[in-house]
């Protein structure tokens, strides 16, 4: 093999602490290396051209680039060598930036280390083989998981683009968190007025199949050809017949059912439609509270239902859908703020969450848009808002900033004044994070026009004093402790990944961070992709997001899907396992350990042998490390390739 080595300066990113010229000079002495040089920015156009030229000039058939992480630019350089006519797998990278120049300043040690890494890369390269992808057809349908605003956006964009869309929503209506909001910042326009029509579009779009009150049971397959098992949970109401008239709900005698849509500030009926604009507008029975389902007595709903759609015998139903891509838009949930014992830990009825307050502000909410203290139903006069409850707080394991609380708190303070002109709002904040179009102006308005009293400091304690709540905090700008007698306290509770997000991630085989938020493919360059091909992210499942950002990401995910489906066939990654049929003794250990069922037993001239199904193989290599005789080899990470790296490093 004739190898060319390119050692990148990356401006001063590498050159500052690695002597790249020395690295190139050392590389020239390595076996197989016929050309080595250092370049300023190898990834730039002239840098890439240099590689192409060198391949032609020196007749190179293998390239090593020592620069940044392969997670950054491996794809870039593979395209470069392909442009020069080489197979793109006859290329290796040495990571001398993230793993060398950026983590230490010792130029001698760094240079020495960089030489080693280049040596490893070139030794591995000598064991590389040209690899060729296989083509396979794709199923141009898309699954959207989650019917919040991000999921709705993605679904409508895909459907308008001509794709068949399957949407699966956990609750009995789409709309997500946005449907619970009264108004939206910074325009203070009505949330349901702008979201409602889009929800209706989902229901009416000929390309969209909606499974509400359903969950993902199982996901199999791979990009282009996923097979999804959807669990349609029993609603005890035949939704095909239900007209959403609401008579059942009206007549239901069981009045103490948990009202999750209204954030439990009130109760609902055992049979219920979450809210008037629900999509689909269908009733469901909550079996925990239904006397009929619990004790076999009652049956009022069945009696009053004009279309006879109550079915107490209904069971969960499983449906299989085949799709080619998946968009997850599972959103967020609120942090369990009751760990804050100093705020009462949930013992004081007049300490509520921002989302509960939102339901209270909403005209369609249980109070009809009137602000009332949960304890006695009185109108509050002094309302205290506390920010960063479960945000920016390491002690409760939530060190990140939720990002949108500053804005909705300002909005709620403004709305409070609108609802109760005689009231006074106080906001305890640490910093006001209002980066966004018209955002800072909005928080200023809360102060300037609505006289909201912003107090810079955290609250240490809330306790009841008479029928008021004493809020004891700090005003760090004044440098002292302050106390506010409050009638109502609203906590700006931080966001965390929605419940069950990690479980779904396991099914999707995508990674998630320690808070349950899904990991994007690259923090900057692949914000909606995941590390699993064909699975995309939209909205707050990837990290807390406000409505505009969620919608933008929904559209971005849709664009990704449309882009993926613009081809009729996909290429499979050739970095998969292959079986050397001569060496295989048919012991089946690889079959036993493959997590994907990608290896099957075949009969080869009367002998049992293993065989890898390339499109199913994900390239983990468990089979390779399991096979005692090394008959299964993961391409591009073969035993010989790894051994050559070990041997390059450890030369006795």
């Amino acid at each position, binding site marked *: 093999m004739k190898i060319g080595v390119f050692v990148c300066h990356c401006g001063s990113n590498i050159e500052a602490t690695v002597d790249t010229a020395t690295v190139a000079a050392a590389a020239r002495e390595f076996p197989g290396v016929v050309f080595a040089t250092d370049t300023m920015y190898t990834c730039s156009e002239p840098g890439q051209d240099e590689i192409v030229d060198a391949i032609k000039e020196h007749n190179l058939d293998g390239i090593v680039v020592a620069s940044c992480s392969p997670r950054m630019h491996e794809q870039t350089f593979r395209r470069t060598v392909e442009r020069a006519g080489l197979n793109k797998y006859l290329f290796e990278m040495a990571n001398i930036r993230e793993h060398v120049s950026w983590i230490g300043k010792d130029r001698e040690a760094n240079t020495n280390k960089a030489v080693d890494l280049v040596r490893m890369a070139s030794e591995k390269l000598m064991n590389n083989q040209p690899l060729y992808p296989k083509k396979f057809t794709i199923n141009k349908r898309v699954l959207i998981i989650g019917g919040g605003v991000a999921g709705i956006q993605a679904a409508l964009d895909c459907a308008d683009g001509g794709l068949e869309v399957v949407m699966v929503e956990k609750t009995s209506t789409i709309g997500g968190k946005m449907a619970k909001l009264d108004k939206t910042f910074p325009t203070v326009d009505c949330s349901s007025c702008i979201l409602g029509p889009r929800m209706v579009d989902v229901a009416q779009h000929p390309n969209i199949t909606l499974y509400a009150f359903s969950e993902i049971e199982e996901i199999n397959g791979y990009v282009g050809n996923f097979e999804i098992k959807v669990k349609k949970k029993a609603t005890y109401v035949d939704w095909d017949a239900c007209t959403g008239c609401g008579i059942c709900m009206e007549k239901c005698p069981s009045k103490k059912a948990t009202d999750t849509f209204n954030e439990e500030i009130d109760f609902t009926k055992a049979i219920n439609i979450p809210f008037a604009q629900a999509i689909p507008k269908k009733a469901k029975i909550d079996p925990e509270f239904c006397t009929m389902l619990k004790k076999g007595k009652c049956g009022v709903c069945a009696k009053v239902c004009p279309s006879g759609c109550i079915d107490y015998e209904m069971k969960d139903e499983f449906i299989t859908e085949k799709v080619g891509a998946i968009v997850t838009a599972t959103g967020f949930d609120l942090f369990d703020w009751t760990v804050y014992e*100093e705020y009462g830990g949930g013992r004081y009825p007049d300490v509520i969450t921002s989302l509960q307050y939102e339901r209270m502000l909403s005209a369609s909410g249980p109070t009809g848009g009137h602000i009332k203290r949960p304890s006695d139903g009185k109108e509050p006069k002094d309302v205290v808002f506390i920010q*960063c409850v479960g945000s*920016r*707080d*390491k*002690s*409760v394991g939530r060190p990140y900033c939720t990002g949108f609380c500053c804005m909705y708190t300002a909005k709620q303070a403004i709305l409070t004044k609108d609802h109760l002109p005689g009231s006074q709002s106080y906001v305890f904040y*640490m910093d006001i994070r209002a980066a966004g179009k018209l955002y800072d102006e909005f928080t200023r308005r809360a102060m300037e026009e609505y006289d909201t009293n912003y107090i*810079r*400091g*955290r*609250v*240490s*304690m809330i306790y009841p004093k008479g029928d008021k709540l004493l809020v*004891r*905090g*700090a*005003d*760090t700008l004044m*440098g*002292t*402790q*302050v106390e506010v007698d409050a009638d109502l306290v609203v906590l700006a509770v931080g966001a965390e990944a929605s419940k069950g997000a990690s479980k779904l991630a396991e099914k999707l085989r995508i990674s998630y961070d320690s808070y349950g938020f899904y990991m994007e493919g690259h923090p900057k360059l692949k914000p909606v992709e995941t590390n699993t091909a064909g699975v995309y992210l939209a909205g707050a499942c990837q990290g807390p997001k406000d409505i505009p950002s969620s919608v933008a990401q929904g559209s971005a995910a849709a664009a990704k899907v449309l882009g993926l489906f613009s081809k009729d066939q996909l290429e499979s990654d050739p970095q998969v396992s292959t079986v050397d049929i001569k060496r295989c003794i048919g012991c089946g250990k690889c079959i036993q350990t493959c997590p994907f069922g990608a290896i099957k037993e075949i009969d080869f001239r009367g002998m049992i042998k293993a065989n890898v199904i390339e499109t199913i193989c994900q390239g983990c290599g468990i089979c390779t490390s399991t096979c005692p005789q090394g008959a299964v080899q993961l391409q591009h990470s073969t035993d010989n390739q790894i051994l050559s790296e070990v041997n390059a490093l450890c030369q006795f």
Partner: protein
Amino acid sequence: MKVININSSYDSDFVREVEEESGQKLNLCYQCGKCTAGCPYTDEYDISVSQIMRLTQAGQKEKVLQSNSLWLCATCESCTSRCPNEIDVALIMDVLRHMARREGYTGTGRVKTFWDSFLSSVEKNGRVFEVGLLVNYISHTGRFWTDVDLGPKVLPKGKIHFKPTEMQGKKEVAKIFMRFNEESAK
């Protein structure tokens, strides 16, 4: 108000010393004020605890060590318990107090005198002898009316003894103090 030059007034040795002795990282503090918000002694402080944290972070040794607040902290742990960054603020107050003591600061004096009286009682008797402690404190401060009013109420209860309880190991305890004084003198 005095203008502070950040470059010249930052005492890095002081910052390092506080961090070493407390095992806490001062830069974790982001000045949310929750310690001050919960501190029962803020009323008495000349500098609030969050500002003590900031001044320490900023290396303003003089200003911190001369603060009366150090002597009024009762280590009630409200600050430590509630700090979102899990800084042991009460421990930092303790460490600052040690440093203030070493540098000869006493605040307004009465609290320190009381603590000293307490310890000398322990040094002498192995245990605290309450009456002795009070007498010692009074003789140092001249505040001879301290708690006299309680006399008629408490005396009949038989709680107050005019002799220390005897213990055998009091010499051992005294030795601990002796060695401590020797070690500190080193």
